[in-house]
């Protein structure tokens, strides 16, 4: 059993982490196609990639806040237990995405080739998960 608060913490946590996985992969594919189609210049794409990276890290920090030793982590763990999800698996996913976001933020993005390489690195680092729709 979990309380309503614990269940909601776990549900929103999964919504954030798995939604971020989707966003990172979709956006990475988008950078490539937007530069290839000239919808965005390299400079524009690079700026958006940097902004996206900062937003990814901000969303991951939400997970850090609830998954640090203390009462919040206990509540989160109780909620995950009801859902049958192991907290360590979520933490692993967060670490994987953080590494990808930091690499996205720090990479040189001065040419179309570098935009492609950087986007491909995100796609390689952040695993695709199946979706229902």
């Amino acid at each position, binding site marked *: 059993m979990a309380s309503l608060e614990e269940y909601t913490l776990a549900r929103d946590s999964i919504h954030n982490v798995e939604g971020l996985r989707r966003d990172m992969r979709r*956006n990475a594919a988008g950078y490539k196609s937007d530069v290839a189609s000239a919808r965005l210049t390299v400079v*524009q794409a690079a700026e*958006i990639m940097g*902004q996206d990276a900062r*937003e990814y890290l901000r969303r991951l920090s939400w997970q850090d806040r609830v998954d640090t030793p203390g009462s919040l982590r206990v509540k989160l763990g109780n909620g995950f237990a009801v859902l049958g999800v192991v907290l360590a698996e979520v933490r692993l996913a967060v670490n994987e995405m953080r590494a990808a976001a930091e690499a996205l933020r720090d990479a040189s993005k001065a040419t179309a080739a570098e935009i492609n390489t950087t986007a491909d690195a995100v796609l390689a680092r952040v695993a695709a998960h199946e979706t229902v729709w």
Partner: protein
Amino acid sequence: MAWDKGWNFRDTAAYVTDGTNETYVLIDSYPTTRNGVTFGWAAGAQQSRDRDSTVDRRLAGINFQANNGAQSNFRVDLPSTADYIVTLALGDTAYSQGYQYWRLLDNTTVLATIDDTNGTVGDNYDDATGVNRAEADWPSQNATIQKTFASTTLNVKIGAPTAQADSSTLAHLFLSQVAAGGLSIPVAAQSYRQRRVMV
């Protein structure tokens, strides 16, 4: 660095091609990150439609909330507290809507409200000042509003708070940061930014 972000509300991403600094909203739930910004529908039972791909890309579709007394809440996470110029298209290229309701909030503080009891006829939109613009006129004539945000949470609510006719239909929203920290800037510079937003 300028922070200019636009959202074109519709049902299919590839229905039209968004401009620079714009992205689509297909009733994406909060939090969604795209185009360098985190946003999405945080509450409500909104729906989406593609309407006409031949009109201005910003008016090609809608997300909407039936005017049944419930409201939908679109949230944007701003990069900092600041003044922002707001551009809006509230209407529908395909159908008349008997009532349009839109409210802009700085987190929970109301900054602006459009309570259009006459609604909009087809091919017409309320701009951010609540003035009705014909579809052909909106791109060049829509007027913007400038508001100060003391928080980094922008909320837009659509849907009449009491039951009314038809739906409140959101086609386009654009935000342009004026100056971080709510600093005032010269009037001439504001005018320049406003002209640029409306291009």
